[in-house]
């Protein structure tokens, strides 16, 4: 997840929520394409479910047919509800790293999961989720009708905690005053440097020729980063 904006809200798909504690949470909202893919996977899982159901219940005669019909009913209406109440992820969403949450980021309650999935039958109209797609494109948080009524968001899960370490380097003050937002960009560069190739690092650092000089720009930036991080003492 990208860090929240410093000044004006950017044109992107990050949804914000201010908690009662007065801090702002941000969620990366999932768009129509990835959600359609998740829906496709879920459809496949459900088809396999229908198939297994038919196979198992065929052995049981009249009661079996009854169980099959009830099973079809449950799979058709409650398959997503069950998974979304459990952890917010149907198998399709899980495979693609998506999760359904309330607008405030809390896990889904029964009522919201039921609402958004009962209304799926309208989102599907007139064919292949067209109503849902149009609604998603008409609002900034990609909500289909069910999401609007239930107050839910489909967001990217971000479980991995990135442990970036800024390489140690003797700190050095920059030759001219640097605004705090720009300091942040340099820090970001330092954190990501070991994920980039050496050539790319050099290329990026050399963009700031006026600041870093041209002989060892990457090391200069690292020195500045350490300066911002630790100050003169380098402690």
């Amino acid at each position: 997840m990208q860090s929240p904006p410093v000044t004006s809200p950017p044109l992107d798909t990050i949804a914000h929520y201010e908690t009662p504690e007065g801090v702002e949470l941000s969620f990366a909202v999932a768009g129509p394409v990835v959600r359609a893919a998740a829906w496709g996977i879920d459809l496949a899982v459900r088809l396999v479910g229908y198939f297994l159901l038919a196979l198992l219940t065929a052995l049981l005669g009249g009661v079996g047919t009854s169980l099959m019909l009830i099973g079809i009913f449950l799979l058709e209406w409650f398959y997503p509800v069950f998974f979304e109440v459990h952890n917010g992820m149907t198998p399709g969403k899980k495979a693609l790293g998506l999760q359904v949450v309330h607008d405030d980021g809390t896990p889904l309650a029964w009522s919201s999961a039921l609402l958004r999935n009962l209304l799926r039958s309208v989102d599907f109209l007139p064919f292949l989720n067209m109503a849902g797609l149009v609604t998603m494109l008409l609002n900034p948080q990609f909500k289909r009708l069910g999401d609007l009524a239930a107050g839910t968001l489909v967001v990217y899960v971000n479980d991995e905690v990135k442990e970036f370490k800024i390489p140690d380097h003797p700190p050095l003050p920059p030759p001219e005053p640097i605004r705090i937002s720009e300091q942040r960009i340099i820090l970001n560069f330092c954190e990501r440097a070991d994920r980039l190739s050496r050539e790319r690092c050099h290329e990026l650092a050399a963009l700031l020729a006026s600041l870093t000089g041209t002989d060892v720009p990457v090391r200069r930036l690292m020195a500045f980063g350490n300066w911002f991080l630790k100050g003169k003492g380098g402690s």
Partner: protein
Amino acid sequence: MNQSQFEQAYRPEWQRFGQLLAILEKKSGAARKDPPRDNTVAAAEFPARYRRICNHYGLARTRHYSPALVDQLHALVLRGHRQLYKKKSNGLWTLINFVARIFPRTLRQNSRMFWLALALFCGPAVAVGIATYHDPLLIYSLMGEGQVLAMESMYSPENPKTGRTRERDAESDFTMFGFYILNNISIGFRSFAGGIIFGIGTVFLLVFNGLMIGGVAGHLSHAPYMVKFWPFVCGHGAFELTALVICGAAGLILGQSLIRPGRYRRVAVLRRRAPTALVLVMGAALMLVAAAFVEAFWSSSAFPPQVKFAVAAGNWLLVILYLLLAGRNTGES
């Protein structure tokens, strides 16, 4: 304070908070392996620590510390937020409370929508019912010849299993139970969901079902079908028809919130009213399960019509008294 001092000072707190989260995030199944004390301690310690972390996150952001640190704290705050504000429910009690109090109470609070749905359903049903009673051929303008034939054969005195088409003859009561669940509850759910198209879907389905049911009833109220038709349908009708109208009322609530949002945004009103509508749908779905049970196992039984009518009267009384009286006390809601 620069970033590295900040990290050094507070990292132990972040790690402890991470441990607490790990304990609390374990699902109840896995948590049983731990000593239960662990969980209580974590829960007691949690809120104060969560507020500290929020504070740190806010500081890290306003001081423009490095993005990785801010992201790391954001992840902790998000997980904490999800733990602190998640809505809890205790399954069975919620269900009992729902059936005994919340559903009938919510229906009475929205009685205007119920009466409107009832009118939309019964108006066409009664009108078409009377019309087809006087002119049985009118049924052919509602449905095709094949459907009428199937309907007639279902309630023909020669059909040993009333209420079922010949192809379904051999199937047991259980099968029909499953069929009624799938078919009727799906119709109920769709009547509700259709309300989000500014009520149009709901109104359409209520009127459509009214026309069909009224037409069939009027058409079959003649010999030879009459002696079979009414004893069969009267028993489950109390649950089934009422539940369908309630689903319609729920859909109309969605429609109303979009058509007449008053001084609020449509989406806001929709969000506020949708949970109410959901209560009605879920209650109606439970009634439809009851209806399916009665229809499959009682309506098809061979008891004499007098018994059937007596039981049907009891069912109607039960449904009306339940919806009127249940949950009237001001106890826990």
